[in-house]
């Protein structure tokens, strides 16, 4: 790693100030992606602003509208344990990384990084979540802008993520056997006004909504509704672990399984 300073503010305002002091600063959530990246010397921030000590960014609560609100610095383990109002979300969190990673990794860190194979982006996009930052609220549909790219500005911190709770939902992850990230992960959420399907791991453009499947499932929420639908493998990730066509195929399989398992 290149060297850097670490500051550990206890209030959002202080964190924002630390981040604005210098353009070479970066927020540090649980560090489960950032620290390995720094070890490879793929980034060289001068200052890391740890948000782990900010109490107002911690924990899971229930919003006035019934939504599940998760502080940006909440670990995956905490979401898994405390987001019982949204069982599919808790289940998703309980399978990110491994237990030690879940004890450190945070939802804000994951969404800010927007790894194309991460689980939370699928959950947030399928749920139509709202990403709340220190300056604004961003709808999930506007937030994800391609792999490792989001609507966040320099120095902007995810302070909370608000998930409307669906009638039924499920996340199916088909793991890449080495990294255990999603080779394809499909999050299906059925709301009163329709079904949303978000897919991670598959596309060169990062997490995306499968609108044809959403339409089919909105009129008939059953696995059979997916029959005959398919995605093109052309724009899908093709690597050592699977071709674009294979990933496209898995999108269908995992979507059906998510629908069948949705509770």
């Amino acid at each position, binding site marked *: *790693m*290149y*060297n850097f300073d670490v500051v550990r503010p206890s209030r959002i305002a202080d964190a924002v100030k630390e981040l604005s002091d210098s353009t070479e600063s970066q927020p540090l959530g649980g560090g489960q992606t950032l620290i390995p990246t720094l070890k*490879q*010397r793929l980034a060289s921030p001068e200052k890391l602003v740890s948000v782990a000590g900010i109490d107002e960014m911690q924990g899971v609560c229930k919003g006035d509208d019934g939504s599940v609100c998760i502080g940006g610095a909440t670990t995956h383990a905490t979401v898994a344990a405390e987001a019982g109002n949204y069982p599919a979300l808790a289940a998703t969190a309980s399978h990110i990384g491994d237990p030690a990673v879940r004890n450190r990794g945070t939802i804000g860190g994951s969404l800010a990084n927007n790894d194309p194979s991460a689980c939370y982006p699928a959950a947030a996009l399928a749920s139509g979540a709202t990403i709340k930052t220190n300056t604004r609220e961003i709808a999930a549909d506007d937030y994800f802008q391609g792999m490792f790219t989001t609507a966040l500005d320099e120095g902007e911190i995810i302070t909370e993520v608000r998930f409307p709770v669906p009638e039924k939902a499920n996340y199916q992850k*088909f793991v890449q*056997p*080495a*990294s*255990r990230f999603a*080779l394809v992960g499909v999050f299906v959420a059925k709301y009163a006004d329709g079904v949303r399907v978000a897919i991670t791991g598959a596309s060169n453009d990062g997490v995306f909504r499968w609108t044809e499947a959403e339409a089919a499932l909105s009129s008939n929420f059953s696995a059979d509704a997916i029959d005959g639908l398919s995605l093109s493998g052309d724009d899908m990730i093709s*690597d*050592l*672990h*699977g*071709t674009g066509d*294979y990933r496209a*195929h*898995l999108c269908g*399989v995992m979507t059906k399984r998510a629908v069948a398992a949705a509770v």
Partner: protein
Amino acid sequence: MPKDGGIGASSKRREDIRFLTGEGNYTDDINLRGQAYVHFLRSDIAHGTIKSIDTAAAAGMPGVVRVFTGTDFEGVGTIPCGWQVTDRHGEVMQEPAHPILAQGKVRHVGEPVAAVVADSPEQARDAAEAIVLDIDELPAVVDMKDALKDGATKVHDDLNNNLCYDWGFVEENKDAVTKAFEDAAHVTSLELVNNRLVANPMEPRVAVGDYARGTDESTLYTTSQNPHVIRLLMGAFVLGIPEHKLRVVAPDVGGGFGTKIFHYQEEAFCTFAAKACNRPVKWTSSRSEAFISDAHGRDHVTKIELALDADNNFTALRTETHANMGAYLSTFAPSVPTWLHGTLMAGNYKTPLIYVNVKAVFTNTVPVDAYRGAGRPEATFQLERVVDKAARELGVDPIALRRQNFITEFPYATPVAVEYDTGDYHGTMDKLEEMGDFSGFAARRAESEKNGKLRGLGVNCYIEACGIAPSNLVGQLGARAGLYESATVRVNATGGLVVMTGSHSHGQGHETSFAQVVAEMIGIDENMIEIVHGDTANTPMGMGTYGSRSIAVGGSAMVRATEKIINKAKKIASHLLEASEADIELKDGAFSVAGTDKSVAWGDVTLAAYVPHNYPLEDIEPGLEETAFYDPSNFTYPSGAYACEVEVDPDTGKVTIERFAAADDFGNIINPMIVTGQVHGGIAQGIGQALLENCAYDDNGQLLSASYMDYAMPRADDLPMFSVDHSSQTPCTHNPLGVKGCGEAGAIGSPPAVVNAVVDALQSAGKDVTHVDMPLSPDRVWAAMNG
């Protein structure tokens, strides 16, 4: 009743105490006063000409002690190869120089080009980044068959081409084999890949060099399976340090699996640089660095053909293999596809005629050498796959076809130059059938199908050769070393023993199992015996641990030394008991005179040896310490039969291992608990090769699976519990313990069982799939089903 001590007891491992409490002493735990750290600048391109290396900026960076490049090593030797293969035309192999730091060209991603020694690891890395490297990129040679085409880019400009050797075995059989194929009633052929692997012991390699100016002595602490071999290779061939001025220490080593046999540039560098800088120099590999600097394993591409007569008897076998050597010859690389592979092609079968052709090829990839099993997994995989395919083509039961062709009379001289001393292949297959509950398979398959899954059962046999030997034979075959082992047994005055062995334990539990043997021989408690290994300063010359040789060769040396001790102790006892030496018996730690109640305790005899007041000084010397060297007369031949049951998810292609059974014959067993553990670990690595692990390069010679993000290591939830048995025992006839070795069996025996099972599953669904290349990852299986 299981024994509670000695040979055959599942004694708990004494080494566990330190490992479980954080008190192990691994090489990276060693920090010497004033040590500096080296960071290697490694090539990030596969093939190129070095135009210039500008180290000026780096040399001026904070903390930098010295920057080294290839020119600093011009007067120094190169990394030697320990085995010279002679090809089918009588020519010796082509052998390129293997520099410590690249000279003139880079030939694989990861090749060290320059090295920075600095006060801290981070400073060394910072400075390495400041080195300006100008390399003219050349086309990379990656595919082995392309590498052998006329006009192919050469990996080494000073060699004739990229062919290291073209080996034929047994060359004299070739025409007869051809004739047998012409006369065959049926021929089954198969082309397959034995996938390239990375050994990945959990402890990355580490080297710490030290130099004492006052005594002109060098010390290297290194993660090695064989410190004496490193001392010999590095001292004699690279740095020119005589052995009495060079100490090599391999303390606790966190797994080896073959990849820590070899002498690596980093070891020579740290030893050299410690003297040049007059400071200890430490290198700790990162995992990322390990992927591009540890020798890889396997990487064979093979065509195998099996000829059968009208009664389904095997009449001939013919193989053609391309074996990847990588860019340079690692220590034992040439021996792996030849003498550790061709000699095993008979397997468990009485095939009368065999011809093996191996073309070893240089490519712009990391050097390839022995990995757990080394040559024997490659032989077993192709043979057991082609036998399985033949059974399917002929519509006969795969087990019955195997049984029909089993070797049943021993000793058995194969047509590939080795003689199996013992074995009972029907015995292990009988045991396997019992363990595997094959009669219940149909019901289990039906249950799987109800759940939308395909179920398959795969079976295979294996034979392997352990304890590679004897030295005079391996010398004829091209080994540049002897393959004996030695042990010194030192008995202390109060009766405790120290056994200093040339074998090295890096997970095998020698400190426990070796002590069990000596305890049994003398009849004393295991805790009176200490096993010392891993330091050339306090152990006799040794060849180390690989090829499942420790108990068969190192254990035998220890037995021979202990026998000498007992013989001398009997002389002392006969003096003390005033009886004829011929009447002295040793039992339960006491010497007695046969037929009398006169006896003297072990401890009284050992005390007499060191306090020789009442002692036959005119006949024997005081003291009680003996050394023995043991050079085996033959290999040992463990064998067995393995069965795997898989489920395949037809929607995704994902394979899960539902059941796995292994029936092995290791001859006599010293510690059943340890043996079982060795088999478990071997099976996990075999399943890893079959389903998960894939060391892959792209066309430019870039490693695609360069970290655990892309190289799939087997994890706990990839594997089931294993059913393991080694009650079938045909003791080795030529070593004193009747032992055969068990370290590699699991890795040799398991891959074909897995692939046979997956093919069985796919064919059960009517898929016309006869083979899928490893690893059988979900995408490959799905593609095979939908191809």
